[in-house]
Each structure stands twice: as C-alpha cells, then as structure tokens.
C-alpha cells in the first residue's frame, strides 16, 4: 500500500530530478520550442516542495491535488496547466483514503492522463508529454519499473515524430529529429516514481 509519505517522497524526488535536468529540458525546448521548459518545471516543483513542507497534507489524494494546484499557480505555459491537471485529477481520483493500492493508483493516474488528453487535445503520436504518459500508465499494471521503461521509450520515440500540438507544431516538418521536452520531463516524473518505489 502507498501512503501520503510515499507520494510526498515522489514529489520530492521529482523536484530533485527536475532540478538536475532543468538545463537539459530547456535545451530540448530550444530547437523546437521557446527554451523555457526546464526553468518552468524547476520553478513549479520548487514551489510544490515548499507547499508540501508547509501544509503537510496527510492523504495520497491531498498530496497530489496540492501539488497539482501549485503547479497550475506557479508554472504557466502549456506544461503548467497540463501537469497541474495530471496531478490534481489523479489526486481527486484517489479520494481521501489514507493509503491506496498500486492498482488504485494506476487507475487514478489513468484518470489524470485522460484529463490531460482532454484538456490539451493531444493523442499519442502528436509529440507531446502524452507520448510518455500514456505508455507509462499502461505499463503501471505490471510494475513501476515497467512504467519507467515505457515512459522513457515513449519519450525517445518522439524524436522522429512531427509535432501536432504545442509550440513545436509551428515548425511543421522541421520539428522532426528532436525529442519533445515535455515527453522527456514526463519520463523523469515516472522515473522518480519508480525510484521512490525502490524499483
């Protein structure tokens, strides 16, 4: 079973990982975007970390909804509302249980990912964070480690794609040959999950 502390540790690990990768994410966002994805997420997860320390929410759902709210109100850009929606909806789907099973979490995360798809209108193959999130949530039924591999593979598979959503879509054919920064950051978040699960 996963408790509030597990999700707190997830967010803390995600924040650390985003911190380390911020320059790389911004670099990825520069040929096909506007060179801010790393600093956007760093700002957001720094705020999430602070909020979790201040407010110490005590259920898995409360941890994730708080994190989502903080992302929405500190990140901006496309990724702020999208990642915010992901965590908020996942958190809401977890209800106010003190502990949740891995299956429950996998189901809730699917709700979150579906919400991101609805909000952003992106389908797999559009070269967005969805390309990492959708395979990850499918693989989560197996294990956290499987989800991590799936997210990473999904992120890497965005390189040859032509973007159809977000800023990169403005480039048309010229978006081909670059990894999507949001897919790369999504893979980081899933990897952080596997890390705190000890996998």
């Amino acid at each position: 079973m996963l408790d509030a502390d597990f999700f707190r540790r997830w967010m803390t690990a995600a924040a650390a990982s985003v911190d380390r990768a911020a320059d790389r994410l911004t670099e990825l966002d520069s040929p096909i975007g506007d060179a801010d994805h790393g600093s956007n997420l760093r700002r957001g997860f720094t705020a999430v970390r602070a909020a979790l320390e201040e407010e110490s929410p005590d259920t898995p759902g409360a941890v994730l909804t708080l994190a989502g709210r903080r992302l929405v109100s500190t990140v901006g850009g496309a990724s702020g509302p999208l990642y915010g929606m992901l965590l908020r909806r996942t958190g809401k789907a977890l209800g106010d249980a003190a502990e949740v099973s891995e299956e429950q979490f996998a189901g809730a995360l699917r709700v979150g990912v579906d919400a991101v798809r609805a909000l952003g209108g992106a389908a797999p193959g559009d070269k967005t964070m969805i390309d990492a999130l959708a395979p990850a949530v499918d693989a989560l039924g197996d294990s956290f480690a499987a989800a991590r591999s799936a997210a990473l593979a999904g992120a890497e598979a965005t390189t040859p794609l032509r973007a159809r959503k977000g800023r990169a879509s403005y480039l048309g054919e010229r978006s081909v040959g670059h990894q999507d920064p949001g897919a790369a950051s999504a893979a980081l978040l899933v990897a952080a999950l596997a890390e705190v699960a000890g996998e």
Partner: protein
Amino acid sequence: MLINVPETVVADALRGMAAAHPELTVDVENRVIIRRDAPVPGKVALVSGGGSGHEPLHGGFVGPGMLAAACPGEVFTSPVPDQMVRAAAAVDSGAGVLFVVKNYTGDVLNFDMAAELAEDEGIQVAKVLVEDDVAVTDSLYTAGRRGTGGTLFVEKIAGAAAEEGQPLERVEAIARQVAGASRSFGVALGACTTPAKGSPTFDLPAGELELGVGIHGEPGRERRPMMTSGEIAEAAVDAVLTDLEPRNPVLVLVNGMGATPLLELYGFNGEVQRVLAERGVAVARVLVGNYVTSLDMAGASVTLCQVDEELLRLWDAPVRTPALRWGM
C-alpha cells in the same frame, strides 16, 4: 544580458517599470500591471497578458483607451491563472472583463482556467483569441495560428470601445472583428537569447534568414539566403495577402522584433508601403516601431488589419499608455 540572475528578470523589470510609470499601479509581487484609476465605473475592462520578453506588449499598453490590466508571465511563458483572476477582480467595475488571449497552448489553457475562476467570483468574463500569424496553417496538424502583431490592433481598438462605455458583448464583438481582420508575417535575421538559456535559441548564420518566425525564439518555417529589405517586404506582404483580401483600407504595423535598428525598420516600412501600393492595397494608418518584440531578436513583422469606418474611428481615438499615446 543586462540582468541580475535569470530567476528575477520579471520581478526586476516590474520594479523598474513601477519607477518609470507612476501613472500605473504595478503589483510586483502578484505580477499585475493595472491602470491607476481602475475600476472605472460603468466601463468594460480589457485584461491581457502573456509571456514576458515581448515588451512593450502587454504592460506598455495599460492605460486609458487600451488595457485595464496586464499579466506578465515568466519570459516566453504564459502567466498563471492567479494573475488573471487578480487582475480581473482589480479592474472589474461590474461591467465585465474581456480577456485578450494570444493563441498559444499555454496562454489559452491558463486564461481558460482563469475565466472559470473569475466567473466563480461573480465576474462576467468574455474572451477573444488573437490568431493572426499566417506562417502557421490552422489545421489539425498545428496548435493553430499564433497571436502576434494583431494583438496590438485588438487591444487598441477594443480598448477604445471599452473606454467609450460600450457594453461587454459589443466590446467583445469588436475585438473579434479586429482579430478576424488582422494577419501577420514575421522574419528573423538573428535569434534571441533568453535569460534561462543564456545563448541564442537557434543558430542563424550571418547571411541567412528565417521566414515565418514567431515571437518566442522558435525558428520559422523556412530558412533562406539573406534577402534585401525590399524582397523581405514582398515576401511578408504577399504572405499576409494570401490570407486577407482587403477591400477596405488597412492599418499597417511594421514591427521590430527587438534588435532591429529603427533606421532599418523605417527603411523596411518604405518597402512595405511600396509593395502595398503595387498590390493595390489602400493604407489608412501606419505604425512603425518595436511593439511586439521577441527579446533581442533581429527581424521584423508586418501586420495588416482591414478596417471599416467604425474601427478606424476607434483606432484614432485617444490613448494614453507608456508605449502608445495620442489624442490625450
């Protein structure tokens, strides 16, 4: 870059803006720029915002006859809903608020959230989307046309309608009409450098240019060997005219991207006017300057907006903001 550290660029700028413009209320902490006399009883209030780095857009357009408030995000990052909600609450007189939103995924999502939240607080909110950049085809394969120079026309003209006391639905309809009648095309001669990245966002060797660029440091649709000012004017005007067949006279914005000398921009305007005359397009008004910039990008954009008499009257109406000022 003339900065302290990347993290404080926007807050630093807002402090400096507050010092330069006592006629505005600049809330540095909450990142909203508000006209000093807001809310103005009985009048609709225009609120806009977007990533920073496009100055004077939008903060420089706050004041009588234009925006009631602007919400600057981080550099090239749309602002967060909290900012727009706060701005809307500060400027709403009860007559309602019009959000002017440039069509970027981030701006659209954040303004949508803000609109919901503001309505929850009892504020009547309308939205207009600016999507004037013809370099992007509006199709299933893109996030839709970007909002660029047309934003200035929308904010000025709808702002004048609001200043006159027209009701929200009318101000919204006018804004929509202007947005629908505006088309832009941009060209980069050099990339910009964002504080977060610290180096140019793309490589553009001297002697080459990018056609169809946006205002966020992204490359354009096509790279070409350097062209003359006259050739660039032809490319830009013709690109705009493929999607706008003006029967009425047009407003022309010849806009610098940030690092193009005004000397060159005026020269470019001369070429744009020549091409417009050759294409038989009647010109009502011309505005030349750095209005919708992309940090220190070298280049320019051309925006045309087809106007009827009513829109032209509203364009000519008095405006008093840091960056646009006439008639008062």
